[in-house]
């Protein structure tokens, strides 16, 4: 039709800025803040902390040197990273699958929702951390126990976001499906699931972060079994090896950020064509 009715894709071609200039605008602020943080870190160590206490904030270059260029520390930290990462990822997948099944069942049946949702809420309100020692007694310091911890910590926000997505389908679209006598499966498959995708990815993103926390918490409680990052961090703190302690913290953060970013990337791939908020991100 005529050009007055065209609203085109949100094309962002502001002036004739070059690729390099774009990069500076997009990534500049983040790099700047990172530089500031490192600067303050050095400042803390060399200026603000007194001579006798500055060892509790080792400067960044010593952290990297001690954690990642020392072969003992490096292999220890790497082992912990792999073990904790494996638990977090395994827990994440199991939590996501359980949450998905639960949310679909609750979205389809009001009775199921009434029966199941209070339990999900209860999971959220009881401090799962308090149960970890009990799980250790029941199942031993195994990968299984750690994964269970992960799942229990992470599942609630995933379920609620999934369920919210499945249930907040546009009223008119539901009427349309009803008008044309679509059955529950068609409604679920062609309307509710795709409509819920943005909320599903939100749930997965939150869940991924929580799974890393769950895995670390399990580590803290386990002095036996696989060596995890949480236990290493604990050990280094007790041995006053603050450089390596920081190294462990950095790796743990990296794990969380990596999972979060991976899901964000997938979400963007899936949603960018049609979802209002996706596709324009830097």
């Amino acid at each position, binding site marked *: *039709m005529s050009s007055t*009715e065209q609203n085109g894709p949100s094309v962002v071609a502001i002036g004739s800025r070059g690729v390099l200039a774009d990069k500076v605008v997009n990534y500049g602020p983040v790099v700047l803040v990172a530089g500031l943080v490192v600067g303050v870190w050095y400042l803390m160590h060399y200026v603000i902390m007194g001579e006798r206490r500055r060892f509790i904030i080792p400067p960044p270059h010593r952290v990297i040197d001690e954690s990642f260029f020392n072969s003992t520390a490096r292999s220890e930290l790497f082992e912990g990273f792999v073990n904790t990462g494996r638990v977090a990822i395994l827990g994440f997948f199991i939590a996501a699958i359980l949450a998905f099944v639960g949310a679909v069942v609750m979205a389809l049946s009001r009775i199921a929702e009434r029966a199941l949702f209070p339990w999900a809420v209860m999971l959220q309100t009881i401090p799962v951390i308090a149960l970890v020692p009990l799980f250790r007694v029941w199942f031993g310091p195994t990968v299984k126990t750690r994964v269970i911890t992960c799942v229990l910590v992470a599942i609630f926000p995933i379920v609620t976001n999934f369920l919210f997505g499945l249930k907040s389908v*546009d009223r*008119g679209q539901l009427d349309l499906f009803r008008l*044309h006598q679509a059955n529950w499966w068609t409604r679920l498959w*062609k309307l509710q699931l*795709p*409509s819920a995708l943005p909320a599903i990815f939100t749930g997965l993103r939150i869940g991924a972060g929580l799974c890393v926390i769950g895995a670390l918490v399990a580590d803290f409680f386990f002095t036996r079994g696989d060596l995890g990052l949480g236990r290493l961090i604990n050990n280094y703190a007790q041995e006053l090896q603050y450089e390596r302690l920081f190294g462990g913290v950095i790796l743990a953060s990296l794990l969380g950020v990596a999972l979060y970013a991976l899901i964000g990337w997938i979400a963007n791939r899936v949603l960018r064509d*049609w979802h209002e908020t996706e596709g324009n991100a830097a």
Partner: protein
Amino acid sequence: MSNHIAHTATSQQARGDTRLSFNNVQMVYPDGTNALEDISFDVAAGEFVTVVGPSGCGKSTLLKIASGLLDHTGGDVAIDRDSIGYVFQDATLLPFRTVQRNVELIAELHGMPKAERRPLAAEAIELVNLKGHEKKYPKQLSGGMRMRCSLARSLVMKPEVFLFDEPFGALDEISRERLNAEVLSLFKQENFAALFITHSVAEAVFLSTRVLVMSAHPGRIIDDIDIPFDFPREHDLRYTPEFGEIAARVSHGLLEAHA
């Protein structure tokens, strides 16, 4: 006024090929609200009946009952439920489907295989002037284009009855007039029966072969006006004295309805 209604109601029936028939329809909501009282009218193929009325008079209820989305509490409704095109207040497009796949949706829900619905959808897209936009997603379309897409979606199954629930209320004046013209050309081309809900007097008179004015609490038909203008109707019909006269009558009916 009331004997006038009775007259036209019977004369409409005489025209034959009735596609939608309301007979003393009554709607009382569970909370006791009397939404519709004693509504009777027919819509035949080639008739374009518009219902105007103040907000809350039960116009939308009327349409929901016609479509079967809502059950009425009294009287009879006759319509072929399998041959309804329903155009909603919003375009209700699925945001995750392209224009092409949105237009195919209803045919898909009725189990039509892909090879069959593809060409039908292409035809409907061409009819509403959306050719070239097939691969776009709803977020890339303007309000007017979304409404066109919604029209095309309903056209695919070539329904015998079209129900319009204030479809152009959210559009600007120009888009609305343009879509009015397009709806009329589709109407002449496909010869469906149309029941159209609006609160715009000009839209009602321009589109219709017959206008019903409703009052609220309870929703009743208080005036029934035949619109004599021939088709095709040109844009400037809106500025003729005859059009003004009829619009004035509808408008006075609405004032009465509000009183």
